[in-house]
């Protein structure tokens, strides 16, 4: 088992995707199937951008086991009032500023869900959100 930690800088879209790129490189080195890597990276990137776009503090904890990767993204931020609604394709709470930068089209959570084997979203309005993702190798 190995663990990695990445700090996310909210509001810094320029560096959004750093964790996904690092995780991608690691999985390539571990000879994980490229189709599986793609799913991990797409899900992680979406989740990372969610923190950059909405939260004011965020951390990513990655655990890699022989047969799976577990990623926990914890943020302090506005939280999601209705998780079921956020899981619906097209729903977005992103500000116009965020949309202008090409993010926040409202495909985040559904797209993550489509790419992972397990997804758990816990959120408290005004406190923050925790997203847990598992992808089996």
């Amino acid at each position: 088992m190995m663990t990695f930690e990445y700090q996310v800088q909210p509001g810094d879209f320029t560096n959004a995707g750093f964790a996904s790129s690092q995780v991608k490189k690691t999985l390539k080195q571990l000879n994980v199937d490229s189709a599986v890597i793609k799913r991990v990276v797409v899900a992680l990137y979406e989740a990372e951008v969610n923190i950059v776009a909405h939260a004011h503090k965020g951390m990513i904890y990655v655990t890699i086991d022989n047969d799976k990767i577990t990623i926990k993204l914890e943020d302090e931020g506005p939280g999601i009032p209705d998780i079921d609604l956020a899981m619906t394709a097209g729903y977005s709470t992103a500000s116009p500023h965020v949309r202008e930068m090409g993010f926040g089209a409202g495909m985040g959570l559904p797209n993550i869900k489509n790419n992972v084997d397990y997804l758990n979203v816990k959120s408290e309005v005004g406190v923050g959100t925790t997203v847990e993702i598992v992808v089996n190798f």
Partner: protein
Amino acid sequence: MPKSFFHHALKVNEDICTGCMHCLKKCPTEAIRMRSGKAKISANCCIDCGECFDACPDSAIYIEHDDLNTIFNYDYRIALVPAVLINQFKDDIPTPLIYQVIKELGFTHIFEIEQMADFLIEEIRKYAVEHAHIKPLISSFCPAIVRLIQVKFPSLTENLVLLKPPVDLAAMYWRQTLKKQGVSEDKIGLFYITPCAAKIAALKTPVGEEESQVTGVINMDFIYNRVLRKIKEEHRVDAENVELSKISSRASLWSTTEGEKKNMLGRALAIDGVHNISEFLEKVENDELPDVDYLELRACDESCAGGILLTGNRFLTVERMKKRAETIRESETPDNHFEIDNDIADYMRTNMGVQKVLPRSMMCLDENRGIAMKKMALIRDLMSHLPGVDCGTCGAPTCQALAEDIAKVEATLTNCIFLQTSMEGRGSMTAQERVETFRKIWGNK
């Protein structure tokens, strides 16, 4: 995993290599290490892009090609030339003269391969419609890029357009045309005049096809020198009765940057330069790039006009090519394409596909994930000891590369001069041991 996947055209001449390290950091796949004072290129990582060839101040890196005399083993000796060739020569040397002098070197025919581009453009468009679910489709025209994707971006091998490039189509066209005239296969010699190393490597071990239709490959700088010398020596000014290419303006620009892009339907992007492309493909892999239908990617700056075997300045070459295309356009009719007989075109359509290009990741530390994880843990530990200055004096391009080499048991931690110094200070390494370590990497410098 086989020891070496690819044939390589780039070689190091150890008699000339001074171990100056200029190539070490330029390599986009970190394929070079310094050992005994010489650059060593790893066969599994090298993509034949030629960045090292360009970086070498002593011309110690060379490109292996076929002997011109081998053409005389064939009755039909066809020179397959890319459009960039004639644009290497200055404006005062007329194209018919260049063609005639190339023939005088021993060829029976000259064929400009971009004459196949119109045919190819139509086929790629059809392919794009049939493969609309793959986004983006990635051009497989530049063989260095195909290899870059195999070793560094394996998941994107699925996006490659699995159609043969113009040189292979030209070879197929000639074989079929001559066979139809009753010429037997063993009398046909098709020789490609190449602007780069990657094309040689690709033709010697084609990716995704059994065997190349091309007989041999000759470096363009070699032909350029021979032709120019002959023109100068013999005070040649003009040539008569030489049949020139019948080529459309768009086909004549195929190998320049945007040459493919401009002919693709939908949203297409053209990127040149291998480092630019690596950076961009990272984003493609992360799915950070929505709604692009087609990517034209060429390893050299200014695409084939920047090929490492070209003599002329790449910007001037492109300027001449554009001027030529403009001249063609002025008298162009809508069906001014090179015409291929229907039966041969049908044959080509049936046979122009290549098999699936397989990923050949160079990144994997071990095929066994348990072992790979152990190696990775070791690398992380090593990285906390290494200085992180990427000086290259250990013989690897970066500290990370050294750490990976150590995990693969291809180097030792004592290769690092920073660690050597502190070890000697602590008394755990003697001055003699330092000298020996240094010689392993740097020879008797």
